[in-house]
């Protein structure tokens, strides 16, 4: 499980081991740990990513301020933590602070399973509840059933993400198309490309991208109330209501018109990204997490814009810092989380395109990064984060993938797709609410 260890020398490990063992024999509910002299951090960001750079800065500050504490950083993979967290967190050999995915199906599950520590007192005393924008706080709080949006704080996000439209400016220029600013212009642009034999949308049916495109369309027709009903279970959701029906029919229309490649059902997000980077498709509707990679690898002129005319967008806080219930050095973990929200760490995030949630974009020097961050700030100002379509119930991701594969393959009608989504959503919701 452990991947590469860094920062820590063998001697420090040897010192840390008896401590860890001693801790195992102690109170399994985890103590205050203010006198602990090791802080173990697990995360899954690459060193050169915006987040990786920011976390390294935070670690540096933490070490300066806690000279007697050894920081033990373990790089895991997203999949490792995602799939195994509920198993290893029941044990005593757990990290003190850990990066984890947010949402009902993920952090919400850990919270309802009693595996992570409530952080409400810390959030109030350290001011995290006033530092973070309201729509970012939604993913930090979970109730007893693990539903986000209310209840105790269980995690602290310190960066954001959103889905927008990446475009190939060279291809737009080639066909005399302006960057679309309205939904009609966007559809007209898709049609123009298609008429010229160019499939306009880079897509991937085997993973998240198709669901996010569908959700952008839902958000085009939906209002905040529907989003809250869908994501936060404030009221029942009618999948055959206007917004879901219009969105699914529109997606079906686009597939039929050839705006999405007919053979994209088994393609992965990586396939989609690579084909956009290679200049095969002029548009890619996907998340800000692609930004750094696109900046590095794209050889042509490209840009990024919000999905035209949408006031809400798929997006949320980034992943969360959570403190396992069985952690030993909880106080040190809170100190570390606090540091990641400081302006100097948030600035490192922002400069590298990491969408800081407690910073400001005026300090960002790169124009493209600045534009991305300003787009995100505009969404935050409008309370426009609508989270992701697979969040409401555990296992819904696979349902969305499967149903939209049916739409790409034209083996189901939009109405049948909505039936499939509805029944999985309802049964998942019942399971969640029943506990």
């Amino acid at each position, binding site marked *: 499980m452990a991947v590469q260890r860094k920062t820590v020398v063998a001697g420090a490990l040897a010192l840390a081991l008896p401590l860890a063992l001693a801790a195992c024999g102690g109170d399994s509910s985890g103590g205050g740990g203010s006198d602990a002299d090791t802080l173990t951090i697990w995360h899954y960001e690459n060193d050169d990513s915006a987040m990786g750079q920011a976390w390294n800065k935070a670690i540096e500050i933490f070490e300066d301020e806690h000279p007697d504490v050894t920081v033990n950083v373990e790089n895991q993979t997203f999949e490792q933590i995602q799939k195994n967290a509920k198993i290893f967190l029941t044990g005593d050999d757990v990290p003190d602070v850990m990066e984890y995915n947010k949402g009902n199906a993920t952090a919400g599950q850990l919270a309802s*399973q009693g595996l992570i520590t409530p952080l409400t007192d810390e959030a109030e005393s350290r001011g995290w509840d006033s530092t973070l924008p309201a729509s970012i706080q939604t993913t930090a709080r979970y109730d007893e059933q693990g539903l986000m949006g209310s209840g105790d704080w269980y995690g602290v996000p310190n960066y954001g993400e959103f889905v927008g439209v990446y475009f190939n400016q060279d291809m737009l220029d080639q066909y005399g198309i302006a960057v679309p600013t309205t939904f009609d212009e966007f559809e007209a642009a898709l049609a123009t490309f298609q008429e010229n034999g160019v499939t306009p949308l880079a897509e991937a049916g*085997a993973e998240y991208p198709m669901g996010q495109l569908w959700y952008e369309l839902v958000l085009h027709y939906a209002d905040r109330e529907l989003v809250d009903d869908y994501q936060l279970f404030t009221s029942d959701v009618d999948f055959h209501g206007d917004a879901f029906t219009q969105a699914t029919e529109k997606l079906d229309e686009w597939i039929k018109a050839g705006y999405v490649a007919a053979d994209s059902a*088994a*393609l992965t997000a990586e396939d989609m990204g690579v084909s956009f980077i290679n200049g095969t498709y002029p548009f890619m509707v996907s998340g800000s997490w692609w930004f750094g990679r696109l900046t590095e690898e794209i050889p042509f002129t490209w840009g990024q814009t919000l999905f035209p005319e949408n006031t809400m967008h798929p997006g949320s806080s980034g992943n969360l810092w959570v403190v396992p219930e069985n952690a030993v050095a909880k106080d040190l973990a809170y100190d570390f989380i606090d540091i990641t929200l400081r302006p100097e760490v948030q600035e490192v995030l922002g400069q590298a395109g990491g969408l800081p949630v407690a910073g400001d974009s005026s300090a960002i020097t790169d124009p493209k990064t600045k534009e991305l961050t300003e787009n995100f700030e505009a969404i935050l100002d409008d309370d426009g984060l609508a989270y992701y379509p697979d969040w409401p119930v555990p296992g819904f991701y696979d349902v969305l993938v499967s149903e939209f594969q049916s739409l790409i393959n034209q083996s189901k009608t939009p109405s049948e797709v909505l039936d499939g989504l509805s029944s999985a959503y309802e049964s998942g919701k019942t399971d969640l609410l029943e506990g």
Partner: protein
Amino acid sequence: MTTVDRPRVRNRRSRDWLGYLPYLVPGLIAFTVVILIPFGMNIYYSLHKWKGGNAPLRWYGLGNYTDLLADEQFWTSFRNSVAMIVAMVLVPTVIGLLLATTLFDVLGKRFGPRVASVLRATYYLPQILPVAVAGVLWNWILNSQTGALNVLLREVGVTDPPNWLGSTTTALPTVMLVLIWIQIGYPVVIFMSALQRVDPELYEAAELDGAGWWHRFRAITIPQIKPETFVITLTCTVAALKVFGPIYVLTRGGPESSTLVPSYYSYLNFFDKSKVGYGAAIANVLTVLIIAVAVVIMVLQARSARREEEGR
């Protein structure tokens, strides 16, 4: 005398049994710790609704099992298991037998045993390749847009090549072909060693009597290598019923559940949906099925062996 002797014999027997006991203890402990206790826990979990972790367990009786009966995906996954048996047992065993006899009888004799063993190793290669690597490799080949196979097909003028892993009609057969590729080396290796065991005098005698290759194959080879055939059938059927890795790396049960198998469906419920009890119930049904199939095959094997002994 007899009244005195009998207890003595019985005593000696029980003492013999006791003498073996220390050697059995490590195995029994390992079996208890690795198989029996987890299996018992799995049965216990399957009788509850449970999210996992420190969440409370709620008694659900046989509810998870009755829910399974009405679960269409569960039945789909078991229907796909039949396809897995075709791809991992039936086809590889038949092709493996033909390949092994060709390598042993024809190529081995004409080009020497070294050539035969190099070819045998080549067929076995997919077996030692980690399944994750094989999956990545086949995804490169089968990708609908950039995969080597479709690029080649487009080169030779096929304008609309199949969407191998992306269409509900082709995904399952494609997965089956990959499984055959992975699996084939196993029967080849076993059958080749079985063929080496067969007394050459039998073939010589048959040849003197004027029996052709087909007759020798049917009357000598197949009956002689029956024990190995049973072993292959048993191990491969169990492997086919619990296949997970190739499905995980190739299709994750998609598109539209067309390649879903019970073990992946159990995993999906256990980990992704946090329906631990339901996932445990699927795993238990699968375990019972595997035990039943294994028992049937072993009974058939014992019956066949007994018949052979009686025939002799």
